[in-house]
């Protein structure tokens, strides 16, 4: 959920962007990270772990833990907590190991 009225800070984000998560169109604020943009839409499961297939989401939000991997514009395993959301960005959840051969991975 977006915080519209922050208790102590001024309004920060003005511009709205539209992006896609697993082909669903969503709204977020320009300047937010992808992880936050998804959380603004109450999406917290960003993918599944590779061995036990357990749900994963933001853990450190600081680019260290790699728990927030998503696919962005076809590039797999991108850290959603350190990448800013952009208009028209296509994001999908991280469900498996990257396939480097595929068209999907920018090759």
């Amino acid at each position, binding site marked *: 959920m977006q*915080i519209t009225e922050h208790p102590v*800070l001024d309004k920060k984000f003005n511009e709205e962007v539209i992006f896609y998560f697993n082909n669903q169109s969503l709204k977020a604020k320009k300047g*937010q990270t992808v992880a936050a943009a998804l*959380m603004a839409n109450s999406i917290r499961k960003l993918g599944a772990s590779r061995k036990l297939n357990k*749900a994963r*989401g933001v853990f*450190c939000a600081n680019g260290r833990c790699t728990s927030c991997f998503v696919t962005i514009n076809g590039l797999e395993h991108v850290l959603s907590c350190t990448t800013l959301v952009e208009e028209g960005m296509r994001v999908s959840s991280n469900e498996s190991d990257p396939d480097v051969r595929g068209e999907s991975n920018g090759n």
Partner: protein
Amino acid sequence: METDILVIGGGPAGMSAAITADRAGARVILVDESFSLGGQLRQQTQHFAPLPGSEEKVRGTALGNDLIKKLEASKVKILKKHIMIGSYRNENIGVTDGEKTFAIQSQKNIIAPGAAEKAKIFPGWTIPGVMTAGAAQILINRERVLPGKNAVMLGSNDYSLEVARQLKACGVTIKAIVEDKEQMISSDMELLHDMKNVPVYLNSTIESATGKEELNKVVVKTPAGLYEMEADLICIANGFDPIIEPFEIMGCNLAYHKELGGWLPEYNVYFQTSNPSCYIAGNAAGITTIGPVLLTGEIAAIGALEELGFMEQEEAEAQRKELWKELAEIEKRENEKTFRARSELIEGFHQKIGMAFPEEFNMVNGGAHNG
């Protein structure tokens, strides 16, 4: 790319070091991995005091913005979204901008990577909705999104309570504070007062965190039995570790000092590590409060400036004397143990390398030991 001084990390310590170095006329490059400067100050809405030269309370975010403005008005070359990934055979630091990887040739490096939160494990800690307290703070204050509606705070140090208070102000219900020790760690009266209506479970741990794909249930194990509660957010606040990877890559010796956060590089009174080309600043040099963080950046910069001839010895000594005095004053006042551990680390390192103490340090240090 070439420079006199390379600063790694655009948080308060790195910015403070870069501003000091620029003022003395050195060419400075500042590298930060994020898309914006400020480091952790970007989400710290709490007020800080004292700061160097001031008793006035300043909000973290405002302090950050102030430093960014100073930096942007300086000649410092700022490389945002650049990550230090390693070093070359000749010890040049290698950074990447996501497109390419290149060396920055520098005379001196001031490395200020900050600290990282220590994880604490419990069954279910990998489920979405469980995150570090720092992550929750980033989300509400920097990203302006709510990570959940009903939160359990694991840990009761000052930082746990501060984040709990900020979450509460954003409308999050704090369902519980869970602490495995027999009493609250924080002794900050103001924070404790703000948490007075929150249930606190002492001698307690999280037995399980469950939910289908996101957290919705937390079971707390207390001496009185198991308590089950509905919650969609757990914040882990288990303290901080200095970030040491860049120092290890640069071949700096490490030492263990519990009061400074655990393992960290050894350094001398100039904040120079065992690798003479690398200085250290900020929380990486020992977990502390914002005043000392800023001062360590300045002291490190002065050491580098003096070595490179941008500052006369006499001038450097005079400035360092003032800065150390202030650092000692603030740190002893806020956390005596931290200052004592810092002194021990420095003394130990000086002894090891057979380096005498300059007077400016004897003075402040003596105070600590007599006290």
